[in-house]
């Protein structure tokens, strides 16, 4: 297990500071009866030898991290100088592929998480107050969006949202615009992806909150009722504080899950308008060229992002652990 977990990470780090060798060129003078020509060609022998002696490629240090595809330091300086205020700075920043992905990933993470927390809580409260027999069925259907493969779920929605699909038709009818297409505009694509993200994530928060609601102490609710609290006040002052640890847990899980958003982008074919960090890595890895070092660099940057995102939680767990000891 250690081999399969830590070696890849080391390998990724190594790859991220190397770049493939350039082909070694040689110039040969070819002479024939009509005169002599200089021909530049690839010296396959030498290139092969070089590749064998240093299989990882040329060592370039942190160059890849700073190139245009990633952190783009040079560009960044240029944009910083040229832009008058912070808005135009962000505007031109989002033209760079890496920052574009970061923007989308962060927007996605920080919109989906609160919405799905709220809706999940509402549904859990609702289900908790309906007939016991119905609950099983409701839970069954609620599980579906989460259990189904993210790629498949997003493809299914994508087909319905297609301008010839049922939701697409409905939206065109609602806005009375037969040419309206959700795929064409960046904003609408983002909204579509976020709606999908919420749809996919609600079941998780719902199930966890629902289980939490079963443990809310009855006597507290009753005494609140005697004190004259209405339903709304009950939720705010008793149920939510009781669920607080669960809310933290769900938030943490969702932050992690949403940060690695990837499949919906493939499913919705939305890469023209929205890319995420995971998608950039996938894109570099796939295709004809397999730009391993570029992908490795993005991987490292993503891992750093995850660590930053999780660091408060990790610190707190560490402190709790020490305290327990």
């Amino acid at each position: 297990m250690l081999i399969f977990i830590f070696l890849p990470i080391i390998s990724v780090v190594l790859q991220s500071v190397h770049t493939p060798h350039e082909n070694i060129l040689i110039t040969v003078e070819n002479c024939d009866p009509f005169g002599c020509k200089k021909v530049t060609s690839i010296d396959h022998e030498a290139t092969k030898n070089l590749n064998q002696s240093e299989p990882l490629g040329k060592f370039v240090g942190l160059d890849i991290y700073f190139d245009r595809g990633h952190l783009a330091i040079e560009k960044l300086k240029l944009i910083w100088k040229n832009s008058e205020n912070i808005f135009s700075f962000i505007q031109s920043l989002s033209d760079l592929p890496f920052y574009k992905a970061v923007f989308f990933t962060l927007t996605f993470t920080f919109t989906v998480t609160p919405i799905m927390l709220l809706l999940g809580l509402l549904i859990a409260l609702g289900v908790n107050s309906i007939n016991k027999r119905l609950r099983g069925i409701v839970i069954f259907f609620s599980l579906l969006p989460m259990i189904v493969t993210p790629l498949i779920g997003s493809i299914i929605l994508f087909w319905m949202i297609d301008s010839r699909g049922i939701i697409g038709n409905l939206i065109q009818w609602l806005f009375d615009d037969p040419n309206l297409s959700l795929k064409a505009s960046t904003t609408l694509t983002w909204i579509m992806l976020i709606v999908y993200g919420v749809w996919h994530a609600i079941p998780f928060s719902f199930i966890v909150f629902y289980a939490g609601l079963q443990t809310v102490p009855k006597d507290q609710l009753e005494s609140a009722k005697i004190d004259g609290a209405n339903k709304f006040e009950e939720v705010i002052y008793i149920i939510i504080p009781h669920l607080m640890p669960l809310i933290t847990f769900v938030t943490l899980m969702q932050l992690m899950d949403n940060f690695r958003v990837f499949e919906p982008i493939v499913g919705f074919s939305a890469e023209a308008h929205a890319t995420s960090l995971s998608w950039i890595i996938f894109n570099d890895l796939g295709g004809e060229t397999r730009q391993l070092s570029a992908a490795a660099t993005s991987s490292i940057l993503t891992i750093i992002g995850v660590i930053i995102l999780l660091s408060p939680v990790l610190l707190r767990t560490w402190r709790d652990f020490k305290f327990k000891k």
Partner: protein
Amino acid sequence: MIKSNSNRFSILIYIFIIIWVFLASFPFFWTFWGSFKVELDFFSISNWYNAVTGKNTLDTYNSQFTGAGYEGAWVQEEFWKSFVNSAIVCFFVVLTSLTIGTLGAYALSRSNYKYTFWLLITALIFRAMPPITLVAGYLPPFFDWNIWGILPTTIIVLVSINQPFTLWMLHSFFQNIPKELDESAKVDGCSQFQAFRHVIIPVMWPGVITTGLFSFLLAYNDFAVTAMLLSDENRTMIPKIAAFLGTTYTEGNIMFAVAAVVSATVPLFILVMFFQKKIVSGLTQGAVKG
């Protein structure tokens, strides 16, 4: 007055729940229904109602339902191969990770050293890291050893990515089995292994099944790893469907993809139907303890 008020409130709740159930399940029923139609019906430009009645399907096949999409996907595009591949991958991932997981987690839960924290942290980090970040690391050695593109490699990778989580889940489960149980077995003259074999194994199934379900879901749903690590002919269902999307749009055979998507969803549907309680308890277990 108060009574009618609370009645109205509960009606509101019912409406809200019905809307949610509708939102959650409608896409699946819609696609399932549509998968038996022709493309002109499923993507209807003229009238969305065609998809319900199947007007063009009736014209083409003399029936409101047609299995043409399924035939195209399973026979012509050889989706069955991917199905078999998926089955193999899932079976072995679940088997391997449970074998390592039960033995490892049992040992951890009975040892006195506090592994718990580190186990939790590793499980957490792996939950947080996109699996694709690791794939870049796997690729070059796999190319070198010429084991890229085959199923066993993918199974090993999926197992190792999944292992911290499996260990964590089983570990907390084994801690719930009282130590007195195997201690009393040892008093009766069992060795450590015999105690595990005769006392622990009979009572561990609920937890093992729950964990197995989650490893199954991981293996079944994975797209990033399988798409990168499997060659074209060894693809499992999910990357195959993604590949369908590229080719079928041009060929006008989008119904193949629809049929394939429905075929890939059906096993999950059945799974949820039979194991709903287990899935729910697995989801909440981590929450309550963590």
